């Protein structure tokens, strides 16, 4: 009996931990700071970092490319930020013919940098 009770307790603890784990980043992502947005802007416009401007029109970016969609209205194109994260992390996994580099999978950007880029892109109303 005690063994079973211990097991339940253990499961509860894991659940609580899992809930905590999913809450922490959610809370962190819910309110990007001005510093996050500024960092994301730099990543998006710098050739040696994300260089998003090479292919996308982005408000505030000079000489944009036109290979990918215009990201001015990203809130309409991709309403959920988690989808934007998946696209930036590894779009070829979703669409094999895409020219979009797999920024996360190929370690071009860290997960934190990807979240900063998203914070910047979604800061445009």
């Amino acid at each position, binding site marked *: 009996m005690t063994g079973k009770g211990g097991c339940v307790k253990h499961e509860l603890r894991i659940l609580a931990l899992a809930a905590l784990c999913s809450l922490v980043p959610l809370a962190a992502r819910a309110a990007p700071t001005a510093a996050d947005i500024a960092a994301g802007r730099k990543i998006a416009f710098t050739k040696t970092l994300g260089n998003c401007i090479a292919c996308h029109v982005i408000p505030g970016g000079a000489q*944009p490319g*036109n290979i990918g969609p215009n990201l001015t209205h990203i809130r309409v194109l991709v309403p959920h930020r988690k989808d934007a994260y998946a696209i930036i992390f590894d779009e070829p996994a979703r669409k094999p*013919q895409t020219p979009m*580099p797999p920024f996360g999978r190929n370690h*071009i950007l860290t997960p934190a940098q990807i979240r900063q880029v998203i914070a910047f892109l979604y800061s445009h109303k």
Partner: protein
Amino acid sequence: MRRWLLLLLALAAPVAAAAAPNPAADRAAFQGWFRHLFPQLPLAKYVDGPYNFSASERAQWQQIMELPPYGFAVDHGKALFDARFPDGAGYASCFPHGGIGIAQDYPQFDPKTGRVVTLPIAINRCRVAHGLPKLKLTTGDLADIDAYMVRTSRGHKIDVVVPDTKPALAAYEAGKEYFYSRRGQLNFSCASCHLQYPGHRVRGDTLAPALGITASFPIYRSKWGNMGTLVRRFIGCNKNIRSAPDKPDSLAYRDLEYFLTAMSNGLPIAGPGARP
């Protein structure tokens, strides 16, 4: 069981047939793709690359061409080409028609070495045959000699021959494989940009179509401030996509140039060229 085997064989047969290298069929499909993308653009115009897609860049180019920036390179290349080697021979002795008006026939497959020979590599082979050291394959004197030889070939239709032999077809296939394979941290193939998105812009640069792209080389590139051969551009592309470049005389680049130029058969030589 037997029926299944027969079905399997029947299915495998066309696959095997499709897998056999067929440069003529590839070329028809390749040129057909661009015709589909830009039905109004005549094939011969593809040699003008990015200038087909940007009126402002075209206007600037036409102004620049009143005094072509590769003019000095062509003159210098001619002087080098006409000079005698210490043994009394010259470059003309190494090529058919004295090396004049022959750029459209390169790259060639050399059955003796089993390797593709581009025009710059043929120039170096000529030097070695006459006891002289090889020149750098990317820029400098060799690019100037190349520029002169290409200038004498302007308007000649590209006519790259892929002999129907196993080694020649293997080199061609390797070049094709390279062209379509994704590489580098940014995960691009040559085709990602120059087949899928010709005429689109990467930042301020207009992507040239793969069709006709070799016809204007060597080029004077404003970004470089001097002449460069096609392998110099290959190296630059590899760096842009964060992929380790190959050696200028590598089999990889020879085969790529072979495939890429063969796809443009029938288009006129337009080099040397000027690009931003």
